[in-house]
């Protein structure tokens, strides 16, 4: 995508706000123009249910954030919908619909081929290959990758030149062009993140899914990455990302989906979701507004009270389990 | 000294004297009782002129005389010779080529028939024996067996099944001794040790050196073998594996190192001991019969030792602290280290004990199969890997179960398919299992793909 690409209609923040204001702020709400719909995604490990999502729709052309406390199942859910893990409900209800079409094959490579590409939390740059080779691998439908055609140069050299030109453009945009002949393993961590993002764009995806893009990145580079993500959105790309950092989320996301204990507990704009009590409880626990520095709390009476509350909660949970 | 012990001593001394006398006299008696060898003019081959095809009908105790043995020459003509009183016959031939040796069934004792050769390649028409590629100047032995016409060649399938099962258990136990170590090494370090079978051979070779060559008592020698092999494991980790781990060598590189080590060890064995099969104990073992199952004393002892040692290893892994630590490291090295377990110490222990077990397996194997050779490892290695993979890479108990299964498959398969496919059968089972359940019988699914 060149810098002069047409800016999508949703490049204007006001337009986006208008669009999303009409969407219901409850889990699994339907979106005006959803690019991805998933149904009945369940993943169990032994006796434990890690993910149990009934329905989720992702709106086209905006940035959606997937947040939640540790252990909420965000990464597992992410892996499930990108094909890197198989839901336990596969064959009994799990369904994907992307860009209006039902997805039958949901292996990782099929998902990528259909237009959804992802990045990884621990970057998977192909370390022992050069930056340019990394980029060239990103392009899809390469004639030269077929075994039969590879021996006959004329069948793929012109396509190869086109791919190279596109790679150079993208590298330039992400300020990596002068590193094109260096081995990817010799880049810094932040540069590798940019490389992964640039590589993902080589196939002109419709939706890009980022797994904790800011993990392990210094503040300066965070700004740069945020800028890149926003300009992708402005050009019409749909972005879904998993994040921990609430500041990042509040700063750029147009829609937020909150997960806890494997389920989606809330959806909405960033502000709505922040003040949702269910969300706050999920993150901080029920006594979040208690000042633990207050010595008065350490009286016997308070301790007894807390013990009673804990016992009550446990009794409740046992009853729930029995039910 | 009480009266009873004096009497006992007298009884004992006299019994011993009788036994010694008997042992001295018995060989003489045997010598006298054997029939004098008949002075038959056996043919002697002359270089470039004649060759000999000769044999004996029946056995030394029961020779079969007066049977007409028919030789079919390359040009189709036949020559007939009658067996002597001692059952011997011989033909002198002047042309090189392919010959057939058969009998005239009418001249066989009543109720007997000629048994066709067991090997398919040697079977000629009408059950005759093929003697191919006869060259002048050499002698060829023609072994013809005669049996009761009512003889049921398939000794009841059930009896064969029992015998093979016992043999299979025996093989499985010996494999288990070695494969438990292999599995633990894999679990704790990630290395697929292609030199493990050579460690087993080492046990047999050291046993040969100590017991056969140096004449040390078998039990003491066995113990020394275990100690020496355990030391070799300790040494290996100290000078090779630990430094390489510290260097950060990848698993593929380590695997190739074990391949090189395996090659070097095999040829060192051949260099030092020679290419022949060597035995730890030279005397023939005493055989016992339990119903229809025949087993040597040595096999029984070996199985017993194996069971005891395996039980001890199992107990150690389950109940002792170091055993639990080993299982923890084998399960998840990083996590174990983070929990404060000294993984280097555990790994050193694993190498030492694994090699000691492999050495024990080796000397027992040499005793039970009556010999060990420089390339015995070649056959065993694949069985070990099959056992470990079958049971689940990285689990010690899986290795035990897998070994027993592989041992049984190897010994039972000749009941249904030709004997030279028995190792191939075990390996095929492995490949098929990987299709269905790659983590093995006791392994966990996450380790796999």
């Amino acid at each position, binding site marked *: 995508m060149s810098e002069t690409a047409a800016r999508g209609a949703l490049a204007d923040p006001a337009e986006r706000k208008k669009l999303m204001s009409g969407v219901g702020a409850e889990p699994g709400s339907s979106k005006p123009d959803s690019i991805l719909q998933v149904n009945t995604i369940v993943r169990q490990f032994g006796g434990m249910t890690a993910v149990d999502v009934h329905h989720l729709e992702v709106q086209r052309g905006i940035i959606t954030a997937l947040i939640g406390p540790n252990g909420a199942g965000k990464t597992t859910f992410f892996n499930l919908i990108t094909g890197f893990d198989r839901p336990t409900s596969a064959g009994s209800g799990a369904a994907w619909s992307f860009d209006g079409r039902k997805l039958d094959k949901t292996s990782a490579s099929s998902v990528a081929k259909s237009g959804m590409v992802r990045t990884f939390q621990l970057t998977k740059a192909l370390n022992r290959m050069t930056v340019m*080779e990394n980029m060239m691998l990103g392009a899809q439908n390469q004639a030269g990758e077929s075994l039969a055609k590879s021996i006959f140069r004329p069948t793929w050299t012109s396509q190869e030149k086109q791919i190279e030109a596109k790679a150079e453009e993208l590298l330039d945009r992400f300020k990596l062009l002068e590193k094109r002949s260096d081995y990817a393993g010799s880049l810094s961590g932040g540069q590798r993140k940019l490389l992964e993002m640039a590589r993902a764009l080589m196939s002109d995806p419709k939706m890009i899914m980022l797994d904790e893009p800011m993990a392990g990145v210094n503040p300066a580079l965070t700004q740069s990455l945020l800028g890149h993500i926003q300009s992708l959105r402005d050009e019409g790309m749909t972005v879904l990302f998993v994040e921990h950092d609430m500041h990042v989320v509040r700063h750029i996301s147009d829609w937020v989906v909150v997960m806890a204990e494997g389920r989606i507990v809330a959806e909405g704009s960033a502000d709505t979701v922040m003040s949702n009590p269910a969300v706050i409880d999920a993150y901080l626990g029920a006594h979040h507004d208690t000042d633990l520095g207050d010595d008065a709390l350490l009286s016997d009476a308070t301790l007894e009270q807390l013990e009673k509350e804990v016992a009550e909660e446990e009794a409740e949970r046992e009853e729930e389990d029995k039910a | 000294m009480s009266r009873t012990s004096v009497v006992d001593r007298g009884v004992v001394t006299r019994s011993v004297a009788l036994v010694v006398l008997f042992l001295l006299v018995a060989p003489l008696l045997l010598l006298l009782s054997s029939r004098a060898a008949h002075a038959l003019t056996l043919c002697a081959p002359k270089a470039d002129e004649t060759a000999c095809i000769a044999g004996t009908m029946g056995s030394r105790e029961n020779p079969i005389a007066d049977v007409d043995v028919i030789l079919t020459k390359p040009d189709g003509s036949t020559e007939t010779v009658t067996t002597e009183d001692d059952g011997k016959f011989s033909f002198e031939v002047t042309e090189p080529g392919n010959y057939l040796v058969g009998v005239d069934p009418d001249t066989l004792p009543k109720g007997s028939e000629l048994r066709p050769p067991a090997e398919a390649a040697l079977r000629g028409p009408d059950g005759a024996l093929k003697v191919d590629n006869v060259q002048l100047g050499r002698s060829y032995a023609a072994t013809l067996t005669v049996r009761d016409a009512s003889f049921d060649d398939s000794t009841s399938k059930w009896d064969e099944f029992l015998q093979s099962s016992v043999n299979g258990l025996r093989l499985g136990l010996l494999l288990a001794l070695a494969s438990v170590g292999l599995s633990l090494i894999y679990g704790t370090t990630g290395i697929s040790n292609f030199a493990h079978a050579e460690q087993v051979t080492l046990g047999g070779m050291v046993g040969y050196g100590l017991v056969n060559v140096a004449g040390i008592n078998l039990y003491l020698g066995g113990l020394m073998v275990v100690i020496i092999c355990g030391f070799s494991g300790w040494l290996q980790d100290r000078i090779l594996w630990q430094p390489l781990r510290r260097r950060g060598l990848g698993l593929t590189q380590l695997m190739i190192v074990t391949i*090189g080590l395996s090659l070097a060890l095999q040829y060192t064995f051949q260099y030092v001991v020679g290419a022949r099969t060597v035995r730890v104990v030279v005397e023939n073992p005493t055989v016992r019969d339990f119903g229809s199952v025949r087993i040597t004393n040595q096999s029984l002892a070996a199985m017993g030792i194996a069971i005891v040692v395996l039980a001890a290893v199992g107990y150690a892994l389950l109940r002792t602290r170091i055993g639990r630590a080993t299982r923890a490291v084998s399960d998840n090295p990083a996590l174990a280290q983070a929990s404060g377990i000294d993984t280097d110490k555990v790994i050193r222990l694993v190498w030492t004990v694994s090699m000691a077990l492999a050495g024990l397996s080796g000397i027992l194997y040499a005793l039970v199969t009556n010999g060990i050779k420089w390339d015995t490892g070649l056959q065993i290695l*694949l069985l070990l890997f099959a056992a470990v993979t079958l049971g689940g890479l990285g689990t010690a108990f899986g290795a035990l179960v897998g070994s027993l299964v592989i041992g049984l498959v190897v010994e039972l398969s000749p009941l249904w398919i030709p004997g030279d496919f028995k190792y191939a059968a075990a390996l095929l089972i492995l490949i098929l299992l990987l299709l269905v359940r790659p983590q093995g019988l006791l392994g966990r699914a996450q380790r796999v793909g």
Partner: protein
Amino acid sequence: MDDIQQIINAMMREVVSPQTAAVAIAVIGLNIHFGYTGLLNIGQSAFMLLGAYGFAIAITKDVPMFFAIIIGLLMAFVFALVLGVPTLKLRGDYLAIVTISAAEIVRYVGRSVGYEGLFNLTGGAQGIPGSRYRGPFTSLSPFGDGNTTILEFNYTDVADGATWVRLVGWIVVIALIVAAVKIGRGTLGSLTGGARAGALAGLIAVITLGIFFLAPVPQQNTGVEGWWFTVVTWLLVGVCLIVVTLLIRSPWGRALRGVREDEDAMRSLGKNVFAIKMQALVIGGLFGALGGMMYVLPATVQPDSLGRSITFFCYTALLLGGAATIWGPVLGSLIFFGGRVFIIAASNTYLSSDKYINLMSGQKTSQFAFIVVGVALMLLVIFRPQGILGDKRELRFNV
């Protein structure tokens, strides 16, 4: 000096031998498996053996040679599929165990006597004697009978083969080799592109002539130990090199290396990783089968001669020359086989005779050579995994 000349002559005969070339072809196949795709195939000998059986048995059944070759290749193709389908979705160690087991199974089946029909085809442990399938190949020879020495004009023609001639000659050749390696690495002079390729080609030609000048090889023209076999097999090596270069310097070759690096990353880019690995397994196996056919042409199809040792030799040659390079397999094979003969011949001359030390008997020298090979493999992998031509950055293996 004459002892040394004997050793050098023995080395040259081995290096030039068609069996060295045949193994080089198999190593080219192994390079595709292990060097470029990271597949741990420890059963390359099985591909070689199956190709050899297919070819030889077909010819003994009077199938024309061209189709016999196809049959051999077809057997390797099917074998690759049978191996790949269960294991390519699993971790690397599983492929290692399955390939080594499958190689043993092929060997056992070849040796077996249990089924008569099978035994008649394969000849059991004795195998199929070369005379039964060599005919169609030797009859194609345009060289006729007689002997030729390469080079006819050699050191014996200069000053009666005096020692100083040979010494000077070797110094010159070694200097040229060092220069060629340096130019190849780019550390000598500043030639690029066509000029560099030309200089290298010229240097290699002169070096080859020089070596043959100093160590002439007399052989029959046609016949088991003949130039016909040698020329054809080495020409085949050249053809294989061209094919491999085309394959590797293409997007397919790039995909292979990507799979070697990180399969998950490749999946996230939409590549069908299983298909890529399977294709690599098949192509490498086809090269192996071709190598096997050429290996048995001057010899016999014996299952034990194409057993595990050959696989280990292939790995040593590959790592020695440099995995994941085009020329590595050929260079590695030349050095490996030459080196092995050197060890055997040197031990025979110096360690096994009354003239110097009598440390080991004649038989023991070849065992000693094997021990050296095993230790060399270990040292190579520990200290210089990239071999001679490999790129150190590219070859720090990790699973």
